[in-house]
C-alpha cells in the first residue's frame, strides 16, 4: 500500500523505509500473538479461527476506517458507536415494523449517516468547535435517538435480510460472511482514497498543518466537512453490517465502539495529532484487538476481572513493544526534547538512511570558487 515507492529504482533504503517500519512492527507483533495462541491452545491454529477474526470484526474495521480518515485530518469522531446503534435501530424498525425492503432501507440509512457526519463537520469547520465535543454530543444524540425510537430490541425476521446475513462464502472448507466482503471492499476503496486520490492527500495535508494547507490553496473547509461525512457514512455502513451480524436493532448495540475504533486506529500507527496514518495499519489494529479477545476466550479460565486486566496488559505489552522496537530500529535515539515521535511541531526527524546511504543532497560549487 505504500504508494511512494512505485517510482524509480529499487533501493535498500526503500525496503526499510522508516515510514513503513511501524506497520511492519505491528504486523510482526500480530503474527507473534497469533503464533503464541497456536502453540498454547488446541484448535487455535486453524483457518477458520483466522477468518473468524474478520467475520467478528468486519463492522469494526469499517467504522475504524472512517475513524482513521478523521484522525489523520487531525480530528476525532466519538459519535460512531451511536451512529452504528441508531442505524441498526432505524433499519430494524423500517424493515420489521414498516416492512420496507432492504434495498430501500440501506441506502436511506447510509444517507442519514453521511448527512449526520456532514452536520458534525459543518459545526466543526464553520463554527470552529472542537471535534471532541461536537462528536461527543453526536454520540449522546444518536444513542438518545435510539431510545426515542424504541427502548426494546427489535429482531429482524425479514427473509431477504436474514438470508443475506446468514449467507456464507466458502474458502478452503472454511467460510466468511457477506460482511467480510463488504469490509474488504471498504478497505480497498479506503486505500485508494488515502493514497491515490487528491481528496485523501489533502486530508493528510490538513492533518500535517491545517493553516499551511489553507495557505497552499487547498480546499480545507470542504475536505474537513467531507471527512466527517465519510466517517458518518462508514459508521452507518458499519451499522448496516452490524445489523447483518446481529439481525436486530437495539439502542445498546455497539457500546463503546468509538473507543475500540479509536484504539484500532491508534494501534495501527495513526497519530492522534494528525497527518500520519495508514489504512493498513488500522486493519492490523482491528486484527490485534480481535486476536487479544480470541486468546482470552480460548484460554477460558480467566475470571471477569482478570479478563479486563489481561486485555489491558496485552494492550500495554503490545504498545510498549511497538514503541521500543520503533525507537530501537530507527537507530537514532530521540533527541532530548522530541516529545514523542511526530508531534506536529517536531523538529525535522533526521533519519538514518541519510547517514548510511550517503548524502543525496548535492550542491553545485559555491559561487566564486
Amino acid at each position, binding site marked *: 500500500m505504500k*504508494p*511512494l*515507492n*512505485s*517510482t*524509480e529504482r529499487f533501493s535498500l533504503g526503500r525496503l526499510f523505509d522508516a*515510514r513503513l517500519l511501524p506497520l511492519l512492527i505491528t504486523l510482526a507483533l500480530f503474527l507473534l500473538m497469533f503464533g503464541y495462541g497456536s502453540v498454547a491452545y488446541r484448535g487455535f491454529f486453524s483457518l477458520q479461527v483466522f477468518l473468524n477474526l474478520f467475520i467478528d470484526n468486519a463492522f469494526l474495521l469499517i467504522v475504524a476506517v472512517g475513524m482513521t480518515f478523521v484522525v489523520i485530518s487531525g480530528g476525532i469522531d466519538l459519535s460512531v458507536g451511536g451512529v452504528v446503534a441508531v442505524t441498526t435501530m432505524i433499519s430494524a424498525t423500517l424493515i420489521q415494523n414498516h416492512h420496507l425492503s432492504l434495498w430501500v432501507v440501506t441506502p436511506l440509512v447510509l444517507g442519514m449517516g453521511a448527512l449526520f457526519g456532514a452536520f458534525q463537520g459543518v459545526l466543526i469547520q464553520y463554527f470552529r468547535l472542537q471535534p471532541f465535543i461536537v462528536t461527543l454530543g453526536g454520540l449522546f444524540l444518536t444513542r438518545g435517538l435510539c431510545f426515542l425510537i424504541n427502548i426494546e430490541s427489535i429482531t429482524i425476521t425479514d427473509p431477504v435480510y436474514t438470508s443475506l446475513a446468514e449467507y456464507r462464502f466458502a474458502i478452503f472448507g472454511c467460510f466468511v460472511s457477506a460482511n467480510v466482503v463488504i469490509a474488504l471492499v471498504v478497505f480497498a476503496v479506503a486505500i*485508494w482514497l488515502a*493514497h*491515490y*486520490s*487528491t481528496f485523501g*492527500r*489533502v486530508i*493528510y*495535508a490538513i*492533518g*500535517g*498543518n491545517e*493553516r*499551511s*494547507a*489553507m*495557505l*497552499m*490553496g*487547498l*480546499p480545507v473547509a470542504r475536505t474537513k466537512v467531507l471527512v466527517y461525512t465519510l466517517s458518518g457514512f462508514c459508521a452507518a455502513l458499519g451499522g448496516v453490517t452490524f445489523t447483518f451480524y446481529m439481525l436486530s436493532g437495539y439502542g445498546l448495540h455497539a457500546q463503546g465502539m468509538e473507543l475500540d475504533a479509536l484504539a484500532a486506529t491508534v494501534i495501527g500507527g495513526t497519530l492522534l495529532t494528525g*497527518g*500520519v496514518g495508514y489504512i493498513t495499519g488500522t486493519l492490523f489494529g482491528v486484527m490485534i484487538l480481535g486476536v487479544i479477545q480470541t486468546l482470552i476466550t480460548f484460554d477460558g479460565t480467566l475470571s471477569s476481572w482478570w479478563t479486563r486486566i489481561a486485555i489491558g496488559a496485552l494492550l500495554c505489552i503490545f504498545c510498549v513493544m511497538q514503541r521500543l522496537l520503533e525507537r530501537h530500529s530507527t*537507530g*537514532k*535515539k530521540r*533527541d*532530548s*526534547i522530541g516529545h514523542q515521535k*511526530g508531534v*506536529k*511541531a*517536531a*523538529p*525535522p*526527524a*533526521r*533519519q*538514518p538512511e*541519510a*547517514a548510511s546511504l550517503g*548524502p*543525496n*543532497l*548535492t*550542491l*553545485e*560549487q*559555491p*559561487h*566564486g*570558487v
Partner: protein
Amino acid sequence: MNANTPLPAAPALPILHMRGIDKRFPGVHALKNVEFRLFPGEVHTLMGQNGAGKSTLIKVLTGVHPADAGEITLAGQQVHLTAPEAAEAAGIRTVYQEVNLCPNLSVAENIYIGRFPKRAGRIDWATLNRAAADLLAGLALHIDVTRPLNTYPIAVQQMVAIARALSVDARILILDEPTSSLDEDEVQKLFTVLRQLKARGMAILFVTHFLEQTYGISDRITVLRNGELEGEYRVDELPRLTLIHKMVGRQIDLESLNQPQANAATAGETFLNARDAGHSGGVQGLDLEIRAGEVLGLGGLLGSGRTETARLLFGVDGCDSGQLAVGGKQAHFKSPHDAIQHGIGYCPEDRKTEGIIADLSVRENIILALQAKRGLFRYLPKKRQYAIADEYIKQLGIKTPDADRPIGLLSGGNQQKALLARWMATDPKMLILDEPTRGIDVAAKLEIMDQVLALTRKGLAILFISSEMGEVVRVSHRIAVLRDRRKVGELPAGSVDEQAVFQLIAGGEQ
C-alpha cells in the same frame, strides 16, 4: 501615504493594482491607505522594516485577511479574493513568509498537491515524483523527493516552497522572503529562474531584507513604512542609502555594515571545549573551542552540519562520543535544561517550530528561558516580568503594541528579536545564534550585531551561524569551517575574506 512622491510613469497597464488598502488588527493599524501596482514582466520588490506591513499586504491580496477598505483590480477587473484557494484560481501563486508546507507529506506531494498528475483516476506517483525531481533539479537541488518534507533542513524546505510556486504557470508570483535561509548560491539559482519567468511576462512580487538581492533582481521597489506607502521607485533611481533612509526614516551608516567588526583583543578564557564530540547520525569528531569574549563563526554550506553542531552543544542531541567541557570541567548535557544551567543559550534557526511559542505573549516568551533556568518555584513576579520584557522591547526595538500580545501575531523579524531577548534575559555566558538575522531588516540587523558585539565585550562567548558568509566573516574572531558534518579547518577572521572560507569548504586544506 506620501503625496509628494509622484508615481513613476507606468510602462503598461498594471496586472495588479491595489488601491486605498486599509487593514487593522486589534491594537495595530497594519496598513494605512496603501497603493501598490505590479506590472507584467517585472520583478517588483516590496521593502520595509520588520512589521512595516509587507506580509499583511500580501495576505490581503491573496484573501487570507479581508481588507477593511480598498479595492484590488487584476488585469483591469475588480476582484474580491476571499481565500487563498480563490487567489490560486485567479492565477496568483504565493510563497508566504516562513515555510508554509505540510511537514508530513513528501517533497513531491508538497510541490504538486492540488494538481496531481492522474492516470486512470488515480494519482500517478511515478510521474509525480519524476516531475518533482526534475523541477528541483532545475533549482540545483538533488534530493529524494519521496521523503517527508520534515526530514530536510529548513533551507531545503524553503526551496521546496519556491518550487511549488514555480510548478505552475501563473500570472503573478509572490515571494515573501523566500531567501531568508538560502545560501548565496541557491539565491543565484533562484534568480536565474526568476529572470526566465520575467522574460515570459510574469509579474513577480518579491520581498527581501537583503539589499544586494534587491538590487540584483528588481526593476522597481515599493517602500512601506509603518503601514504607510512611502513611495514607488524604479530601482535605478534609488541609491541604497536613500532606500534605507526611506525604509527606516533616519540616516544609517551603511559602511559599518561592511566593515569587519570584531577586534581580536577581547578573547579570554576558554568557556566551552568540545573534544572529538559527536552524535550518532549527526556531526562527528568535533573539536571546538569557544572562548569568553569571542565570536566563533561557523562556516559551511547548506546541510554541512552547522545546526547539528549547535544542537549537540546545547544538549538537544546527546553527545554520545567524545566529550564536552565547560570552564575546564567535564559536562554532560542530557537536555537543553542542563546546557542552560551551564549558562548556554540557543536561538534556533527554525523560529516557528523550535523558537516561539505562538500563543504565549511576548512577555512570557521573553522570560521563558530565564524562568526555566530559575526552576518551577522561584517564579518571577509579574512586575519583574514586565520590567524585563519592556526593557528588551525597548532595547531591541521590538515592534509590538504591548508586552501582552501573543508573539505569533508579531511580524517575523520582531519574533526573532524577541527570541534573542529571551536568551539575553538569562544572562548567559555563551550564546549559540543559529541564523539570528534571518528575516531581519537592515537597521535591526545592525542593531542586533551591535548587541552581539557589545555582549562579547562584556565577556560573552558566541557561536555564530549564518548562511550569509559575509556576515560571518565580519563579526567573527575565528571561523570554524564544516563540511559533510565534520570540521575541516579553522581560520582567524580579520585577515580572511569570504573567498578563503569558500576555498576551505571546497576542499583546499588550510
